[in-house]
């Protein structure tokens, strides 16, 4: 088992070097933690406490009760009363109110009528997320109490997967893939290029160690690091944001392992092309940005143009997002997602073949 000993020797050396690189060690834990806190707390797609203004042209007991109900929801924060239509628009213009509600003078007759809008909701269109708030308001039971028929379609969408509409539930699993992409690709690409840059590789390839032993030995520690990061994200997600894993943990780790391998193989390919660590870093970013933007992490996959969807199909993160969402949120099993697993597997195989062909034990 000489090959195994050589492989383990390379892996042990890599771990030893890593353990002496304090900044990189810090990043292994720091990147997931910081990203999770940033996305989990700061970037918040659920909107609460939106400033609002009301122009009550009806001034009846029903309209006053409506305004009171609006104030009781957490969607709206402070509600200002406007006396005229012009005052209302000025409030919006100055940004003091992002949502304005106009109650028609003949509120009760319109509600009874059922054909004309009794409430008009004005939304500050420069902030797209607010449209959701408006939709939420329209679906409020307060209108039902007043006798209106809210659109049942809107209500359904709101409660489909994430009844509390908390971003963290979507963010935690998606972030798992994004963080693994960032660290795995960059770490492997630069770990190999660094040896080339410092001249270590010239010495190594003049020894009996084979390309496969060298590559596997260098990648092995990063597989472990990837699994540690996955554990960290899922644990933090559970304790900080209360996101449970609905599916089996074994499925989660198997899926993560496949994705880690796919990301490492991409890093490996980059390392066979880049001549310096700086180049490797830039190439990693080039592959990372589309992953983050097009994999369905930022924007819904369905909303993207056809061409973009095709590109997204090539990115491993797209498929991993599907897998991990399924396992964490919907309680699916890995076997339920064979197409995604197959696509990730194909990506891995292609990358490994191309990298091995490109990496020769030569300098030219």
């Amino acid at each position: 088992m000489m090959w195994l000993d050589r492989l383990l020797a390379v892996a042990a050396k890599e771990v030893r070097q890593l353990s002496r690189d304090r900044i990189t060690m810090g990043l292994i834990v720091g990147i997931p933690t910081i990203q999770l806190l940033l996305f989990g707390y700061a970037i918040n797609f659920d909107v609460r406490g939106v400033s609002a203004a009301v122009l009550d042209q009806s001034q009846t007991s029903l309209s006053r009760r409506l305004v009171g109900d609006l104030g009781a929801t957490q969607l709206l924060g402070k509600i200002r009363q406007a006396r005229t239509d012009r005052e209302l628009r000025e409030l919006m213009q100055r940004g003091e109110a992002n949502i304005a509600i106009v109650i028609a003078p003949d509120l009760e007759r319109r509600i009874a009528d059922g054909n004309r809008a009794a409430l008009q909701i004005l939304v500050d269109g420069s902030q797209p997320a607010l449209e959701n708030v408006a939709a939420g308001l329209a679906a409020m039971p307060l209108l039902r109490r007043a006798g209106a028929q809210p659109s049942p379609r809107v209500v359904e969408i709101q409660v489909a997967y994430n009844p509390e509409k908390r971003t963290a539930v979507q963010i935690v699993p998606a972030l798992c893939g994004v963080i693994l992409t960032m660290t795995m690709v960059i770490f492997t690409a630069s770990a190999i290029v660094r040896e080339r840059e410092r001249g270590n590789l010239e010495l190594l390839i003049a020894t009996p160690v084979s390309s496969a032993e060298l590559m596997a030995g260098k990648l092995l520690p990063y597989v472990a690091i990837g699994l540690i990061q996955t554990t960290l994200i899922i644990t933090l997600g559970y304790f900080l944001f209360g996101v449970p894993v609905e599916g089996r943990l074994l499925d989660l780790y198997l899926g993560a392992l496949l994705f880690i391998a796919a990301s490492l193989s991409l890093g490996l390919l980059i390392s066979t092309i880049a001549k310096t660590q700086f180049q490797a870093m830039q190439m990693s970013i080039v592959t990372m940005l589309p992953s983050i933007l097009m994999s369905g992490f930022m924007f819904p996959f369905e909303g993207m143009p056809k061409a973009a969807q095709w590109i997204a199909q090539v990115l491993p993160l797209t498929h991993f997002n599907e897998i991990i969402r399924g396992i964490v949120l919907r309680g699916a099993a890995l076997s339920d997602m064979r197409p995604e697993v197959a696509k990730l597997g194909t990506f891995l195989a292609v990358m490994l073949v191309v990298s091995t062909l490109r990496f020769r034990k030569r300098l030219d």
Partner: protein
Amino acid sequence: MSVAITARDLARRFGAKWAVAGIDLDVPRAQIYGFLGPNGSGKSTTIRMLCGLLVPTRGTVTVLGHSVPRESEVLRRKLGYMTQRFSLWDDLTVLENLEFMCRVYGLDRTARRERIADRVRRYDLEAISKQRAGTLSGGQRQRLALGAATLHEPELLLLDEPTSAVDPQSRRDFWENLFALVARGTTILVSTHYMDEAERCHRLAILDSGRVAAEGEPKQLARDIDAAVIEISDADFESVRRALARVPQVRSIAQLGNHLRVLLPRAVGDPVGLLRSALAAENAGAKVERVGASLEDVFVAMTRLRGEVAPERAA
């Protein structure tokens, strides 16, 4: 005489430039064979082709009976290579570097312990064994690199300018270590641009622009030099230089302290007389005498260096 390396018409091109333009080599076993040449003369490229790191554009190479690059994998177990730049790991200690190289060469636990203990003793690494390689001095690094390159007891050592970043005392010690290895049967091929090191080699190839300009034992090379070496002293060098500028046969002039060393083609019948009359015409009185050639003279005569561009002379 058994042969370690044979190369015929070995050549390598990078783009349009021929780094090595067709050289023949016969390196005998258990000797130190030197490559002497200025930067860019093809020393590193040749060494890299010999150990299979670069594929020759043309020509054949046999190293220790193996055809290169086809059989480089087998050869790698018999070969030690020291790169021009220190290429062990800066963030590992001396012992960790040695341990890793042992494992890469597939040595078992017992052999590892013995070899490492031996190299640490032989190359005086005891005091620095727990120090990280990045903190070592040039001489210490060289000793560590030599220790690491010989862990698997290779039959052939390829050393690419091993002493370029090392002080004179360490260079002397380093060469003592090389002779000790040769005494035990190792063949060593070493490239250098230091004259004193070249003089210590058993045989030598002077490389220039990717070709072998001269080959042989250093002393023989100096004897066979195709040039007359004239030393001029006790003179006003400015007028001497003016006078020599009028002599078309002069191939090079180098000042060494308070004398000038002048090379002329051997074909010139009476070089001393020729120079004396040239100096007399310029009224530059001087002592002119013919001397024996040094290796540096051979180097200057054989490489295409002209005028005062003499190769650096080591202490």
